[in-house]
């Protein structure tokens, strides 16, 4: 299998789907002449031309809405919002329009649109440019939400997203673009939504990692095994809507303990949702509360040392796992 970077895998997914289906086209700020702020769309303007690779003005709400209208009338737009931070400007089109239209109009229209955008912290971009909004989008019925953490998943999930008839919020991670991994080059390779990946099997604790945190969790699991003799089962949900809760519950019923790792804010986050679901559906199997390791509850500071303190690292996962595993059953 060829090895490539996450950004290249995304680029390949876009190119293959554009090749395969004339109705697929791209819109976004600086995706064409500039080749993409993160170079995901590199070369695509040259290859597919201005009709299918459209640079937009800085008008997030409206070009997102243009995607909605185009999707309602036979096209498959893949809209890039340069980073998740700017998606706040487009939420009306995403929530009041894209997500609602199929239901609200009694099934007469569909919105097969993909909204791609990278998020995450770690590059000292400061308070307005370091958000993780997975927990906003997963709330919204009508949307699907994908959060790929590997190059192969990035490609396979993006191809599925483009072929899907629902609006898909596709959240990439700025710090993963340069990561390498093996990626199938079969043009029919796709990864279904709603199927979590068990990255590592283990019997002592279930660790769910979201987006980049699936990588962080995997690294922590290696250390936990090597240094603490604790076998963590690491699960990457890959999509948050649909959510493969079954795989997570099955694991928790085996390990009886669970830690959720995410980069976003703690309150009402992805981990809160998972904790609520897990304690609801696996209450009697839990030997400890579902623990959460999250980003800090603050606007992300610029200073490197403060920023590093504000999103989870392997050691935080290890600490949380040790606390969860070490907790005596029945002890307050």
């Amino acid at each position, binding site marked *: 299998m060829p090895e490539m970077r996450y950004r290249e895998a995304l680029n390949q997914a876009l190119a293959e789907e554009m090749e395969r289906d004339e109705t697929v086209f791209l819109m976004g700020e600086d995706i064409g002449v500039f080749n993409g702020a993160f170079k995901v769309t590199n070369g695509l303007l040259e290859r597919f031309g201005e009709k299918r690779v459209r640079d937009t003005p800085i008008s997030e709400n409206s070009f997102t809405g243009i995607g909605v209208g185009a999707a309602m009338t036979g096209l498959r737009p893949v809209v890039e919002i340069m980073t998740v931070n700017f998606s706040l400007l487009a939420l009306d089109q995403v929530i009041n329009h894209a997500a609602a239209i199929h239901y609200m109009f009694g099934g007469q229209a569909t919105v097969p649109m993909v909204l791609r955008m990278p998020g995450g912290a770690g590059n000292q971009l400061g308070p307005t440019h370091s958000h993780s909004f997975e927990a906003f989008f997963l709330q919204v019925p009508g949307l*699907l939400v994908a959060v790929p953490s590997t190059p192969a998943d990035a490609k396979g999930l993006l191809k599925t997203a483009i072929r899907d008839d629902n609006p898909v919020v596709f959240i990439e991670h700025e710090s993963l673009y340069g990561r390498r991994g093996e990626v199938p080059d079969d043009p029919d390779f796709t990864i279904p939504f709603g199927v979590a990946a068990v990255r590592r099997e283990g019997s002592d604790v279930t660790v769910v990692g979201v987006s980049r945190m699936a990588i962080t969790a995997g690294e922590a699991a290696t250390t936990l095994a090597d240094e603490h003799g604790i076998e963590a089962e690491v699960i990457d949900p890959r999509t948050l809507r649909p959510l493969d*809760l079954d795989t997570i519950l099955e694991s928790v019923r085996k390990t009886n303990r669970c830690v959720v790792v995410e980069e976003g804010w703690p309150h009402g986050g992805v981990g809160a949702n998972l904790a609520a679901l897990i304690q609801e559906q696996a209450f009697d199997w839990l030997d400890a509360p579902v623990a959460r390791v999250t980003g800090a509850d603050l606007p992300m500071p610029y200073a490197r040392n403060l920023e590093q303190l504000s999103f989870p690292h392997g050691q935080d996962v290890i600490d949380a796992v040790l606390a969860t595993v070490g907790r005596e059953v029945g002890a307050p």
Partner: protein
Amino acid sequence: MSAGELPDPETARRWLEKMVLIRRFEERAGEQYTRAKVGGFLHLGIGEEATIVGTVAALRPDDYLIGTYRTHGHVLARGSDPGRVMAELFGRVDGLCRGRGGSMHMFDADVRFMGGYGIVGGNLPIGAGIALSSDYRGTDEVTLCQMGDGAVNQGTFAETLNLAALWSLPIVFMVVNNLYGMGTAVERHSAQPDMKRRGESLGVEGVECDGMDVVDTFETVSRAVETTRSERRPILVEAEAYRFRGHSVADPEEYRTSEEVEEWRERCPILLFGNRLEEAGIVSGADRERIDAEAVAEVDRALEFAEASPEPEPGSLHDDIYVLGGQVRGWYSDHREVGRSTAGQEAAG
């Protein structure tokens, strides 16, 4: 037919019939609202019939129309069954949207009415996206995107006009300037209150029509649509109009005087156009009464249809939140284990 001239008699009569139908439909809808048969917010098009019928007459069947929360008239003019429109207001299963949308969210794919939208300004980019699709697919379809004067101050207005001009999209933006956005007069919401000039900064030509005159509206919109179709550039049409009723049913209307309302009522588009047709010998007084009676009868039938239509099945509550495909599985909907049953839909595959 030259400027301001009547169209052929048959067309003229049809326009009159459509306007009367809309008027009678809206009156009945308002009445049913006060009887609590219709819920939510109800925004009527009474007084604005010429802007609706004149506009729709300027469109081809394969053109697209998209509007706001005040679009019962538009979907009727476009040819939707009045019974299904009324059933939508009643929240019944035979409503255009199966009762999901209600008054503010009409849609009829069959007549290319691409939706009424409850968010002021929200329909503009969607309209531009539809126009983009027409262009992309190599057709010569045009989209007409209707909005109120209040919508021009939503950011999407300038954003979308710029994008439409930049990308040469075949779209006509139609501002129905009825002098108020809710209770706020145009001069109190727009520093530069001349609506047709609101596209100037973006290089979008603006034209104006008398929205109380169906002929002028038809002519102006026709020209705009055909220019857009052939020259591939967006145009802004401002139609000066007035709503005779409150913003929605149950608006105390403290922001305008009853004298002002009365003055405008004298310019009633149905009255004036009816008079003109009568003067031209196209309809008689008796014809006008018959047209009215037929409209009332049609609305009566619509009402009967709506009343007879059942409520949506509770079991359908979770249908069509998603398009289900073989490639996805997992939950899509409500996960609750307690409380009333709301078992979610599950994908087939």
